[in-house]
């Protein structure tokens, strides 16, 4: 592959999100002669996935994690090389709140940056590639709002920031593959992990032998985590759930119980486990706000994308968890395809039907695998019954399960939007990102992503001036590559 160095007139692609999908996309597009601006909210590229618990990575450099780390190192190196060559500008700490089609046919991406995220930044581009990732979901249970109860992803962030102190006690609970690295990461950091409470039965996985056989790496990863849990003496309780979190000022203990086949707790199995931290997660949901604001069609909770990772809006691609949650490896494959497709089409050479067979095969295999995981790691059907009327479900607006149930029973609500209108559940700062799946479950209706035109809150003073100088030709300050001027022939 020959890297070309794009000139100022090269087509310009804005990639939103610098996780696995965005990184792979930016690299693939930049290597093919497209000018890329990579916007990301964090100071460093990597996204949520490569913000791995440092302790776990240091622990023993185990093979599977090492493999992921090598991949990330390669991506980071590639990014640095493209930045140095002026092919990619990495817009760090850019919090994108809106993206729109510009009147002249291009796109404008609106971000907030600077101290306090108060400064507007706009990027004009010929095409947009959404790699906005996903966010964690947590289903409520009595006591889940106590201090000390954190999300599984929140626990990972605490690990990274060094906020986890050795000697603490923790329980990791919920469902999904994310619980394993969280538990091992906490244990490796010296936390006494009293139990890993998984409501699903991962024993069901081997029955899906064909999809698994195609994933030796995934099996090795699973075996590795299992070995680590064993080494740290973490008790693994599958088909169990946290029934309630206890504490007055903050978390002191949890009650866990075994589940029957119908997802109900089995009488007589409840036990109390003392712990200071409960890390709980019930999987991920795609971030679709920017896609929705651009008018892209959604398929269920995710952005719809075709074989080339194109959305149904011309000029907008999507890759990674925002098109369906499936893990980092899948995001890499999708990002790579999206970046190549965008480059090919922006440079006027539409790809043939079999343009990237290897990436397409990887993508197909990983999607099949993630479908298997999805089928196994689903919240138990009886979770809603364990949520008492007094339990707060929407934390921003302090709406209880009882108010949600009453809106359905007495006021004629039948979908999430109407429940929201009648109870304010999901109207607060997080705009229902946290509680919408729970609200849907308790209201007995299907979860559908609600329409949120702003991907994050934006000061009215910024909104009032947004796009004021739209229509420029891309020569504005925000649009300059930070490697400009050093662009001579660094490509291979």
């Amino acid at each position, binding site marked *: 592959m020959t890297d070309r160095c794009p000139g100022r007139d090269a087509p310009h692609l804005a990639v939103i999100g610098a996780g696995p999908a965005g990184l792979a996309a930016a690299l693939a597009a930049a290597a093919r002669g497209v000018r890329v601006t990579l916007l990301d909210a964090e100071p460093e590229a990597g996204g949520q996935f490569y913000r791995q618990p440092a302790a776990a990575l240091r622990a023993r450099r185990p093979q599977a994690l090492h493999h992921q780390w090598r991949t990330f190192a390669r991506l980071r190196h590639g990014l640095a090389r493209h930045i140095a060559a002026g092919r990619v500008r990495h817009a760090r700490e850019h919090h994108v709140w809106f993206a729109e089609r510009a009147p002249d046919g291009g796109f404008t991406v609106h971000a907030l940056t600077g101290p306090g995220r108060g400064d507007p930044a706009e990027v004009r581009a010929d095409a947009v590639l959404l790699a906005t990732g996903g966010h964690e979901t947590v289903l409520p249970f009595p006591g889940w709002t106590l201090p000390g109860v954190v999300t599984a992803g929140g626990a990972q962030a605490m690990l990274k920031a060094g906020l986890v102190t050795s000697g603490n006690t923790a329980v990791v609970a919920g469902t999904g593959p994310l619980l394993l690295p969280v538990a091992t990461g906490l244990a490796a950091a010296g936390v006494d992990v009293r139990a890993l409470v998984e409501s699903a039965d991962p024993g069901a996985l081997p029955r899906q032998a064909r999809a698994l056989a195609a994933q030796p790496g995934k099996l090795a990863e699973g075996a590795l985590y299992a070995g680590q849990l064993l080494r740290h003496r973490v008790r693994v309780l599958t088909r169990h759930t946290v029934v309630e979190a206890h504490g007055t000022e903050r978390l002191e203990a949890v009650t866990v119980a075994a589940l029957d086949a119908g997802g109900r707790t089995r009488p007589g199995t409840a036990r109390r486990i003392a712990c200071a931290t409960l890390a709980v997660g019930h999987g991920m949901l795609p971030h679709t706000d920017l896609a929705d604001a651009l008018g892209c069609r959604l398929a269920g909770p995710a952005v719809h994308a075709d074989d080339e990772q194109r959305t149904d809006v011309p000029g907008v691609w999507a890759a990674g968890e925002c098109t369906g949650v499936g893990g980092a490896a899948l995001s890499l494959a999708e990002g790579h395809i999206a970046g190549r497709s965008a480059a090919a089409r922006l440079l006027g050479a539409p790809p043939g039907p079999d343009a990237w067979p290897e990436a397409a095969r990887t993508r197909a295999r990983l999607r099949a695998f993630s479908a298997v995981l999805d089928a196994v790691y689903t919240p138990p059907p009886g979770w809603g019954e364990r949520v008492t009327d007094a339990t707060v479900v929407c934390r921003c607006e302090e709406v209880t399960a009882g108010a949600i149930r009453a809106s359905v029973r007495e006021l004629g609500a039948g979908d999430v939007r109407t429940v929201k209108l009648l109870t304010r559940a999901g109207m607060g700062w997080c705009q229902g990102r946290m509680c919408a799946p729970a609200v849907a479950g308790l209201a007995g209706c299907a979860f559908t992503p609600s329409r949120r035109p702003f991907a994050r809150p934006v000061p009215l003073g910024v909104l*009032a001036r947004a796009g004021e100088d739209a229509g420029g030709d891309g020569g504005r300050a925000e649009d300059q590559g930070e490697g400009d001027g050093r662009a001579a022939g660094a490509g291979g």
Partner: protein
Amino acid sequence: MVGAACALYASRAGLDVILVDRGPVAGGTTGAGEGNLLVSDKEPGPELALALLSTGLWAGLAEEFGTAVEYEAKGGVVVASSTGGLTALEEFAQGQRAAGVLAEPLAPHALYDLEPHLAPGLPGGVHYPQDSQVMPALAAAHLIRGSGARLLTGHTVTAVLRTPGGAVRGVRTDRGDLLAPAVVNAAGTWGGDLAALAGTHLPVLPRRGFVLVTEPLPRRVRHKVYAADYVADVASDSAALQTSPVVEGTAAGPVLIGASRERVGFDRTYSLPALRALAAGATRLFPFLADVHALRAYLGFRPYLPDHLPAIGPDPRVPGLHHACGHEGAGIGLATATGHLIAQVLTGHPPDLDLAPFRPDRFTEESA
């Protein structure tokens, strides 16, 4: 909202009511409204008469439904941005007073007494104590529950059933027929479609509006505050985007910012120019809002008829069919009087207001 009010007043007049909606409660324009109960933006005429009747009825319902519908008799403050504008506004208010509206001129000091956080240097305004507010989705849901009507959500009307003589005898839904000697078309922005199912014509069209919602704040905007040019926009026939700031605090904390108007059909994409204009207008009125975050925005489609008056009453072309739609941006406010008048007509009582200006057959086919 209008359907809910019709159900409430018709039930209370002794009728057996079935309320049918293809979506959930408040699923159409009601769920996208601010809940304005305004007299201030209406010039003397049939709509103002309807608004004044509605205001009294809302106050009565507020006693009954209490805080459940978040009724607030907060009053409106209309602000002039120039001395010329103030003169025009005061003349407008003069006419309203003659028609029975409470409208108190505000010298600058009085204006800032009412709204201390307004931008400095404004020449004055008018205070409208009768303007008030409800939370529209809650209002619709509680009125329906209070009505005792049978509520069938998720039922789509696919046909209006008629006798060989042409009179309505009910509706067909995708989940069965519902027989009734009278059918009220309270389908709002989609009222024209329902009229067409009954074989008649009502040119209801959508006029898109956005509302910006801020993070929750301690109460700093006390009334419904808007700029005097709002009135001109409301009455305008233009298809182009118009925005004039309407700013108000809510019981729940967020500040709501309207009001944009554009005729773009049922386009549901979020338009940055419209949202930007709303933010700019609001920060001009209340500079402190520049640092306040917008959390979200929502959009809705106001049902408007060519002369900006609703269609209320029996349709002489189809015996048994009644219309209660086309209230444009005032449907929440005008719902009570509309429901009350429809109930009077359905039970053979003379209506409290002359319905002639609201006749559904006042449009020719061409006027659409």
